[in-house]
């Protein structure tokens, strides 16, 4: 038996497989007939068998290389990405995530750091004159004072509703970046939490001392709970990833990171959803002329919803 003859005898099928690959890569895969698909898979398996025996039978290296690529190419058409399993989303978001977060030490840490620093800098900014200027740039304070100098009398949703896009883009962007930087051993996430807590706390404390304080709290009350929780969640998801590199629970570091990242994805998804809800409130309710008690009710209801989500849905149950 000659090697050259063997090659010739197999070549027709290899070429057929190649043609089928081109056809399937062309995007018309949904229309591939059952017959073609069956033919494809059997051609693929025989190409696999040829490759397995190629070295044993001393095929020229070029041919082996060709077979490696052919098999790889066909493999990627046969085993395709499963994209998103949307059916599991509801379960993930309403059952798995709250239960995971209920006993989540990273969330506790992020929550504690955020509110601790927030309250501390708020008190400092309120009691100590000049504290806020040291934490927040002077221009930002002047800008805030100017922004809230007019009472909120309901000029309608900001930019006729356009602000909802801005808030989603800006705030969810910060949240996602905060999550991504968490991979640097959690330091990124921790830094983002500290920075946001100190800045927001100082602004809150400072604004309370100014004549504009009424306008300011009138504006921030309604969307506060969703937005602040979202920041904390995003940071906690990032810390979960970053700290998994340090505390590996007995796994190799990279495997530990992979596991933590997989768990963190639905958490960051929840954070983005919260940012979206906060953006809607911030655009349509916060700047409106609605009396303060309505905004306070919205705030209390959203805080209640969050509590329900984290505590009632999250409370550990026997499996």
């Amino acid at each position, binding site marked *: *038996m*000659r*090697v*050259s003859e*063997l090659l010739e*005898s*197999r*070549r*027709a*099928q290899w*070429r*057929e497989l190649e*043609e089928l690959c081109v056809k399937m890569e062309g995007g018309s895969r949904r229309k591939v007939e059952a017959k073609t698909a069956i033919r494809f898979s*059997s051609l693929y398996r*025989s190409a*696999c*068998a*040829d*490759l397995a*025996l190629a*070295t044993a039978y*001393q095929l*020229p*290296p070029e041919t082996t*290389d*060709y*077979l*490696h*690529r*052919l*098999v*790889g*190419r066909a*493999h*990627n058409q046969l*085993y*395709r*990405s*499963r*994209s998103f*399993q949307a059916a599991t989303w509801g379960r993930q978001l309403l059952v798995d995530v709250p239960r995971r977060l209920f006993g989540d030490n990273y969330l506790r840490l992020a929550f504690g750091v955020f509110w601790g620093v927030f309250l501390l800098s708020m008190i400092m900014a309120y009691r100590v004159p000049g504290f806020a200027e040291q934490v927040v740039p002077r221009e930002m304070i002047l800008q805030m004072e100017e922004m809230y100098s007019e009472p909120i009398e309901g000029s309608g*949703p900001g*930019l*006729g*509703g*356009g602000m*909802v896009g*801005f808030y*989603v*883009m800006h705030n969810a*962007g910060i949240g*996602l*970046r905060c999550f*991504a*930087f968490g*991979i640097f051993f959690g330091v990124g996430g921790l830094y983002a939490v500290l920075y946001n807590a100190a800045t927001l706390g100082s602004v809150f404390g400072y604004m309370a001392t100014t004549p504009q304080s009424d306008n300011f709290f009138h504006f921030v009350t309604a969307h506060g709970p969703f937005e602040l929780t979202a920041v904390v969640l995003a940071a906690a998801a990032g810390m979960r990833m970053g700290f998994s590199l340090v505390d590996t629970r007995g796994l190799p570091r990279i495997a530990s990171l*992979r596991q933590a*990242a*997989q768990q963190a994805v639905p958490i960051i998804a929840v954070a983005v959803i919260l940012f979206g809800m906060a953006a809607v409130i911030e*655009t349509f309710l916060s700047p409106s002329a609605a009396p303060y008690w309505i905004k306070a009710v919205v705030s209390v209801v959203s805080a209640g919803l969050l509590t329900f989500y984290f505590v009632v849905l999250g409370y550990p149950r026997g499996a």
Partner: protein
Amino acid sequence: MSDSSALDTAVEIITPENIAFRYRVAGPFRRLPAYLIDFGIRLTAWMITSVAVMIAFSSLGLPGFGLAATLIIIFALTWLYGGLFEALWNGQTPGKRLMNIRVLTVEGRPINGWQAVLRNVLRAADMMPLMFYLVGFLSAMLTPRFQRLGDLAAGTMVVVEEPKWFQGVIRLREAEVVRLAGQIPPGFQASRTTARALAAYVQRRPQFSAPRRAEIAGHLGRPLRRQFNLPPETNLDLLLAAVYHHTFVTDRREEERVVAAGSPFAPIATSPFAPPSEPADQAAPVES
């Protein structure tokens, strides 16, 4: 093969069919152009859709919603473009498709939606500082599969998936080669590594000049010339070509033919995996 993978950028994948095949991992010089192409596409899509959406909503008298939609589209293009494409296009974005690369899991399986989104969201960390991608570049240089941080966390890698033309046995037409091949003792059988070296040499010898051929062929040719008791003036380049001819093209010995009948390629035709053997000309109707 495992020895070559140590210095190579190849990764070995074991398929569910229990076959090991190799992929080439994509390095920065393929991934950067792919990224830039995607960036250009994103920028263009952003400009076109934002203008279109703004005009559409303004004509409806709702400019505010037009602005909101535009900003949300920018957000989606920034954070979800790569993730959605990779999830729906089997691990490829338009840029990756043009550069013939694909994202797979480190086990060689296709990625799922979560992995696609995760590796693209973590791009924000890989881009640091600013847009210079230093973190991602460093991480790729330090890992054997060129993984940036997003790849490490999602358990993915980027491989080259380039079609390659079939190249079989090379037919040597030179009369001198055929004559020399006849002088090789019929019992001679090249070892596996020798056969590989011969094939590599014959593949490339058309690109070498005559003195260079003599120099390269000398390493293997001289011992073979001694072994075959050929006259010292035998051309070593042609001798190697003749041994190649003998190994890959000429009929093997009688007893080996018996072995061959029960070996690699013969049983495939009758194995359960093998497709019904169809002549090549009959393959055409299947295509249509």
